[in-house]
């Protein structure tokens, strides 16, 4: 997105985003439950997790107000968002306000269920699917049985439907490890452009912290993306983590979610009070 501010979006948040003081994307945790239970999951999501879901109305209001305040993009994550029947239509409606990245594990799109993704086939929506290794057994060890096969099946079908697909790889190793090259080749062979393949570290929070996995990050090391959940607004998408069943509150900004200006202005005030972080060097995104 351009760094210039549209005339109808002038204001402290728009100015801070344009100046790089705040990231442009607002994240929404649509829900916390998931059909998988990945070993490094920041939110301890699993089929048994409390749903703690946002309503479609709240997500649409966040999208509309985020655009009006001057944010430049939206991200939807969970849990597994595609467990919510109404989610694809809601994401398409959100994209009327700002471009959306939808994170999914890609395992709920087999067979005829691929049709659920049809509303996502638009220029302003990208679907980001996790894939951690070119070796099925390695990928599935962390992410669950048959995950690899389901993802490798889903990606070309989504692309054929006209959906933009990004792949996200979460690694416990170095981000430039040459052992990731076969995975890069696999992703490319699935039809995903190299620029749409994100490789990022495990952040040591939530379940990853309990298991001693990933990079240690102080608040200033975590990108200060405004993140909206059913429990409130947080500093960064790595903020609303869960460990031993308890929500981490150290990166809680406000319990108030709407109007979005309330948490956005607190986030900006906190961001201006913290020294620069190391998020770029750590590769946290």
């Amino acid at each position, binding site marked *: 997105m351009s760094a210039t501010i549209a005339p109808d979006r002038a204001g402290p948040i728009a100015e801070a985003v344009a100046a790089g003081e705040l990231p442009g994307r607002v994240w929404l945790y649509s829900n916390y439950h998931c059909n998988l239970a990945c070993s490094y999951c920041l939110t301890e999501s699993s089929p048994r997790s409390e749903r703690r879901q946002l309503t479609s109305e709240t997500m649409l209001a966040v999208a509309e107000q985020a655009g009006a305040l001057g944010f430049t993009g939206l991200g939807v994550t969970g849990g597994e968002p595609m467990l919510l029947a109404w989610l694809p239509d809601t994401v398409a409606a959100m994209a009327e306000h700002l471009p959306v990245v939808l994170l999914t594990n890609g395992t709920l799109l087999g067979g005829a269920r691929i049709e659920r993704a049809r509303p996502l086939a638009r220029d302003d929506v990208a679907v980001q699917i996790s894939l951690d290794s070119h070796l099925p057994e390695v990928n599935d060890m962390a992410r669950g049985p048959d995950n690899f096969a389901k993802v490798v099946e889903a990606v070309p079908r989504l692309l054929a439907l006209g959906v933009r697909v990004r792949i996200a790889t979460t690694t416990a190793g170095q981000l430039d490890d040459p052992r990731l090259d076969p995975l890069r080749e696999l992703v490319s062979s699935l039809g995903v452009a190299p620029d749409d393949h994100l490789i990022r570290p495990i952040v040591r929070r939530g379940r990853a912290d309990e298991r001693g996995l990933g990079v240690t990050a102080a*608040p200033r090391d975590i990108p200060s993306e405004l993140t909206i959940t059913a429990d409130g607004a947080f500093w960064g998408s790595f903020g609303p983590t869960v460990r031993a069943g308890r929500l981490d*509150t150290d990166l809680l*900004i406000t*319990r*108030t979610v709407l109007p979005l200006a309330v948490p956005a202005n*607190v986030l900006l005030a*906190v961001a201006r009070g913290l020294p620069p972080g190391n998020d770029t060097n750590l590769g946290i995104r």
Partner: protein
Amino acid sequence: MARVELLDAASAPLTAQRYFAGGDPGPIVAALATVPELLAPTLEFLGAALGDGAVATRHKELAILRTSVLQGCRYCVHAHTAVALDVGLGVEEIRALHGEVPVESGFPDVGERALLGWIDAMAGATGPLPDDVWEAVRQHWPDHVLIELSVTIGATLLLNRFATGFDLPISPAVTVRLESAGLT
């Protein structure tokens, strides 16, 4: 044990962490920190309502402790009995505020007795303020004192219900001090 989670320095939200920098901030702050956007404005209000103002500290503490007694707030009575000692109230006066002895025996001054009658009507009753209570208090106290004290009483009522409703724990150190003064 409190009925709600009391946050500590590790779990305190970013905007609440400054209240934990000097150690345990006490259970009111530790509970309020769960809703961080309310913490600063609430503490600012409580500080203005309960702290120094135009009204003498002695009379503010009369209002705070008497209101807490009338509301049956164990936490606030405990904490403000210690504050009352700090600001110079005598043991007999505190016992009168606690309701252990008649108000007349603790407070011979007619003006202070009128003030306590007004505090009782404001904090321990519902409905219109009786005319005789109002006529008695206004003979001794100007409007600005009563208005300031009404805000003090209101803030105390908030804290009374907050501390009682969530069963906030009393401080063992304060208990020891009160016992040594013959107050429990």
